[in-house]
């Protein structure tokens, strides 16, 4: 093996890890995106470690009803049933993050398949797929999710399915448009002229060049989906009491909004800040996924 010439930098890791690392370096140059990512990781850790971290049982009253932040030793106060808002927030984060991330990622994968197939096969398959998606498009996304959530039994799975279905038309459309552009790039024709097989061109030329904008869009959507999931929770389609996601918590505080604004306010802040963080991460990803931004 001594004959193998030294190809550039010493290489101890596989190529994809090197690419991954280069992307992280680019990403970390974005101050705001990087901060947002750290913030989200913290939120996720806190949610995952809820049983350890939460100071109280989220389902048991531990203080006076609606007691304001700081009283009874409850940092964020108590809700209308005297339960610790902070503990409920920590437990609720599990549900809200799950609703934001999992169905959105699933929808991205499904859309990638649908969009690429539509654009790549063209002709009638494209027409059929896109016209069906157009039908879904006719409904506003919240209404669409509401309809799905209304058909099934309320619960976390229902909200996830609703978000998954509601998102597919949006992401598929982006995938299809991007694929159509990439498909006509000269490098795809060059690959064909060099004897690339159909699936090779799909996996090495089409998908890698389509995926970046799709990931960026999906990330931005995750924040919005936490809001949407919260809205569905607010409408009562989500998890059922006494469990609560952040949206449900906002709803619970609605009746006492004047007397005890903190009950709604803290989950509201959580929703907004996490949604914003996802948006900022999307910005950073846009650069991190662009090979042109990677250094030598």
């Amino acid at each position: 093996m001594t004959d193998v010439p030294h190809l550039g930098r010493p290489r101890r890791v596989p190529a994809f890890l090197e690419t991954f690392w280069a992307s992280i370096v680019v990403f970390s140059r974005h101050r705001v995106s990087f901060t947002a990512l750290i913030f989200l990781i913290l939120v996720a850790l806190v949610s995952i470690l809820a049983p350890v971290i939460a100071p109280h049982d989220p389902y048991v009253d531990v203080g006076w009803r609606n007691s304001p932040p700081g009283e009874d030793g409850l940092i964020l106060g108590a809700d209308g049933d005297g339960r610790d808002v902070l503990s409920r927030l920590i437990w609720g984060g599990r549900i809200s993050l799950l609703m934001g991330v999992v169905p959105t990622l699933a929808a991205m994968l499904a859309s990638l398949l649908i969009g690429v197939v539509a654009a790549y096969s063209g002709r009638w398959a494209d027409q059929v797929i896109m016209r069906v998606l157009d039908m879904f498009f006719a409904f506003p996304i919240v209404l669409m999710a509401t309809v799905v959530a209304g058909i099934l039994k309320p619960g976390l799975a229902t909200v996830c399915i609703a978000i998954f279905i509601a998102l597919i038309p949006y992401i598929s459309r982006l995938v299809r448009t991007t694929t159509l552009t990439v498909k006509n790039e000269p490098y795809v024709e060059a690959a064909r002229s060099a004897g690339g097989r159909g699936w090779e061109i799909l996996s090495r030329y089409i998908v890698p060049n389509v995926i970046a904008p799709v990931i960026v869009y999906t990330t931005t959507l995750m924040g919005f989906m936490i809001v949407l999931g919260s809205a569905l929770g607010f409408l009562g389609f989500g998890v059922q009491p006494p469990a609560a996601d952040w949206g449900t918590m906002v709803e619970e505080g609605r009746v006492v909004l004047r007397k005890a604004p903190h009950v709604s306010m803290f989950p509201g802040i959580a929703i907004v800040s996490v949604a914003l963080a996802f948006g900022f991460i999307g910005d950073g990803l846009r650069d991190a996924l662009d090979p042109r931004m990677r250094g030598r």
Partner: protein
Amino acid sequence: MTPAIEPILRVEDLRTYFNLRTGVLKAVDGVSFTVEPGKVLCIVGESGSGKSVTALSILRLVDAPGSIEGGRILYRDTDLLDLSEAQMTDRIRGDRIAMIFQDPMTSLNPSFTIGEQIAEGIIAHQRVGGDEARIKTVELLRLVGIPHAEERYHDYPHHFSGGMRQRVLIAAAIATEPDVLIADEPTTALDVTIQAQILRLLADLQRGLNSAMILITHDLGVVAAMADKVMVMYAGRVVEYADVETLFSNPQHPYTKGLLDSVLGLDAPADVELHSIPGLPPVPVNMPAGCSFRPRCSLALDVCAQSFPELREAEPGHEAACHAVDAGLARS
């Protein structure tokens, strides 16, 4: 003109049509030619004359609504039109017949390093392992004159200038030592100073590999420098076909003459007005009978409106498709 060498590729009566809503566009209409190992055939013509479609037809890469309607493309003794799609990808495209495209800026996959892209082709066609392919790739990059080849293996296409990218594409094309190289205006997108370097590189490699080359261009300077034989195309048809000395010294077809006249020599007086062929080339949809060059031709006869002139030998080894030439009017 026919050398003793057997042609490696023989195209006979190739017809590639595009079925458009407005009618049938005969992009390539009855084109025949041969290329021999170690020789260069230049296909010359204006935009839309069918040069590029001819090249894509050879690799059977014409997309709908276009299709190859007839003719034969004989590589050695195999008609490429008889092969299955799988045989084309496995044995022909990028293996025995390789293509170099016009725009080096967009002909490389932006998501992978150039080394990976070249090595990928080698692995696919030559059934060698990753290490061997990488070594070969670095050798190829050196061969096409890319400095620090080992390091540049890991660079992405956007790290390269246009000329360097075209070298990368050439390296990829010659990786499998193809029998036929098709270069579709390989220097059009490059700076004039780089053009000569790239052409010299191409010519050296092609001769070194003893490959046949089909060079598509509209630059007569390139033709003079590179060609052994020249085929002039107009509106999907061959109007003149000769070896390069004959074509430049004794052009027959009025279109070829027009092309040659519209190039200024270095010794031309400074105040001479540049000659241009009047009018525009036709879009070959629903072409009327008769010669497609007739509306722009100074020698047009009555017969030119009635039938398309056949490609006929004007002198041994020199064919032209022109009624006026047939009538002996075109002697200058």
